[in-house]
């Protein structure tokens, strides 16, 4: 493949990866930002969203788009409810103590994973995208006959992948509006700044916490419903998103939404381009190394504002 089309394919793939990363990391970042809770079970909420998408899609008849839309509504609600319940029954009981919440969420991780294995089973199951057209992309060159447009071999994307990029942008804008422009967002930011003071001003901190944890789970599930048509639902699929979310959130700065977005784009694009031109292994090595460098030289992350 020529350099130009090759680079375009790499950037497109990178943009899809960036969208996927942003969608999975945003919930983790939100939960850490407001609650200072490192939610190790985040990947499992993602997995549950994907499995529910399969379940809904296979129980709702009709065209794939119908099942997809129903899943888009049901999965985040169900997973968000479950996450809020986990907050009230588990995390609240350990007083959000940092070490104990990590251990508790590891427990939640295994419970969710094994219950899924016992009920849903070990198979990877596909979810049909609501629409998916292969779009061959043109490229241009100045040849002997002057400016020419041609269709290089393999240079293509699908309409659904473009939709995922758009959907990721929409979800991110939605979360930003929620945080910056609504009353509940105000309460969340107040709780984030100073929990005791918020409590003194009559903010129901416990309810805010349950809401935020539920919202984090719901965002993971929403991301999963959007992403799963490009992959498959499988009970172990939560591992990768968790790791990648941590990478993105650490580089972007724990709790910083703009940082999360910037890091997702940085990691996604570099992963796409480096893995196409060099090797996917090198891309992973570089991403991990970047995490190490950020932790050493700028522990608060690129956009983080440091300890308050």
């Amino acid at each position, binding site marked *: 493949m020529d350099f130009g089309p090759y680079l375009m394919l790499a950037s497109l*793939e990178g943009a899809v990866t960036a969208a996927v990363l942003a969608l999975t990391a945003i919930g983790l970042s939100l939960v850490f930002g407001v609650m200072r809770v490192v939610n190790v079970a985040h990947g499992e909420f993602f997995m549950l969203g994907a499995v529910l998408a399969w379940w809904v899609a296979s129980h709702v008849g009709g065209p*794939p788009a119908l099942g997809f839309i129903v899943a888009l509504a049901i999965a985040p609600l169900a997973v968000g409810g479950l996450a809020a319940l986990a907050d009230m029954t588990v995390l609240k009981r350990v007083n959000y103590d940092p070490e104990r919440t990590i251990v508790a969420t590891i427990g939640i991780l295994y419970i969710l994973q094994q219950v899924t*294995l016992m009920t849903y089973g*070990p*198979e*990877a199951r596909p979810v*049909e995208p609501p629409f998916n057209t292969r779009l061959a992309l043109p490229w241009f060159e100045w040849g002997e006959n002057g400016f020419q447009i041609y269709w290089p071999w393999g240079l293509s994307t699908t309409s659904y992948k473009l939709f995922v990029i758009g959907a990721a942008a929409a979800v991110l804008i939605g979360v930003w509006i929620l945080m910056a422009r609504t009353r509940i967002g105000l309460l969340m930011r107040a709780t984030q700044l100073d929990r005791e003071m918020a409590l003194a001003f009559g903010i129901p901190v416990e309810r805010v916490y349950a809401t935020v944890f539920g919202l984090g789970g719901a965002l993971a599930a929403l991301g999963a419903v959007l992403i799963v048509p*490009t992959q*498959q639902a499988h009970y172990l699929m939560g591992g990768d998103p968790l790791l990648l979310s941590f990478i993105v959130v650490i580089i972007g700065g724990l709790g910083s939404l703009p940082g999360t977005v910037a890091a997702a784009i940085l990691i996604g694009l570099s992963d796409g381009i480096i893995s196409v031109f060099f090797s*996917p292994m090198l891309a992973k090595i570089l991403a991990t190394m970047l995490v190490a460098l950020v932790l050493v030289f700028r522990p608060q992350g690129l956009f983080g504002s440091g300890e308050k």
Partner: protein
Amino acid sequence: MTSNKTTKQPGTTRRGALKTLAAGAAASTLPLWARYAGAQTAEPIRVGFQMHRTGIGAAYGRWYGRTTEAAARLINEAGGINGRPLEIVVEDDGTDPKRGAEVVEKFATQHKCDVGFGTLFSHVVNGSAPRAGELKLPYFIVSEGHQLASGGLNRYTLQPGMTDVKSQVQAMAPFVASNLGKKVTMIFPDYAFGHDHRDYFSEAIEAQGGEVVAKLAIPPTETSFTKYFPKIPRETEVIYHVMVGPAVLTFVKEMGEFFGPSRPELFGFIDSLEAVDITSPGLEFLDGSHFWEGMPRYAQPDQSPYDKFYREQVGVDANGASLNDSRDVSTYAHMFGCWETLYIIKAGMEAANYQGPKDRQALIEAVEAMTDMPHSNEHPQGAKIFNGKTHQGFGPQYISKLEGGMLKVQHTTSIEDTFYPDEVDYTTQSF
């Protein structure tokens, strides 16, 4: 807390009732084991089944379990082994090499198993077999890896019921070169099993006058694949793919999206689609492509009575899915290995007049002495020839074409096609 003191109730207590129930339950099983009272001991023969119940091999593990269960039930219905009942002791290894070694250890020391059995994934075999050798536990693998026949393992490890990658690809190569094309790009997972494919297929296709123009190693945990495809050279005539793990559907789908209408020929190992419904969305792209199958998933027009019997007993329909749920697709091309291996263990124990762990060496020697295994209910996949020196079984291979949502066998190789010169002689190693 003095208020908690209670006086003992005379008459029925919960504990007493439970004891009675337990005794009753034990008594109700009496006729089953009383049948074996004629043997010197009615102790069951314990076969430790190392199962990939969790981890990336879980879909295989589930069907290996069902097949093993069916074979064990039949063996017990027919009177067990040497007049003793057969008991399958299941331990999950999480498809993890380290846990595999621990499971082997549990079989030998804790469960007092007579043999270990059933491991599939080659990296788990590599992690577990050395421990079996140290503990002197006969260890019957149902893998596909060539590491055993290449001399990399030990005398206690045997693979009589499943053919290895080297013999499979060697038997496939002539078909690929003469029917599909000579310029091949290989796409394989980046670990032992994939490396076996890379090394032995490259060799085999060169022997046919073909050439491997590119080798794409993909990390086993990869979830997106489009970024690898631009590395496929334009001159490629055939893509040889052998992906495993939960992301294979994505792999196939993205390959379809990459090539669009102008794809090269495809030759795949069914490992890519084991436990996957061929009619899943996204797989239309594979229509017309060829696959290796260890055993044809779809009942063929010339189905043998043995295949029919085997399907009925395991609970698999003519499309290779569970009788109870047509969406629960089996790992049909591999799981026959458990069935056949269990019957080989039985035959070996009978030939060695196996009585207990002290006869383990005699069991290994009895299996090593085996050669021909005819096509039968015990060997439903086809006749086998066992090589006692390399501890490896050889059998026929199938090449099928995916047409109209089902796999139709195009070519069946002979057993001789799969032979290669011995690379080791385990019988010269001491016990």
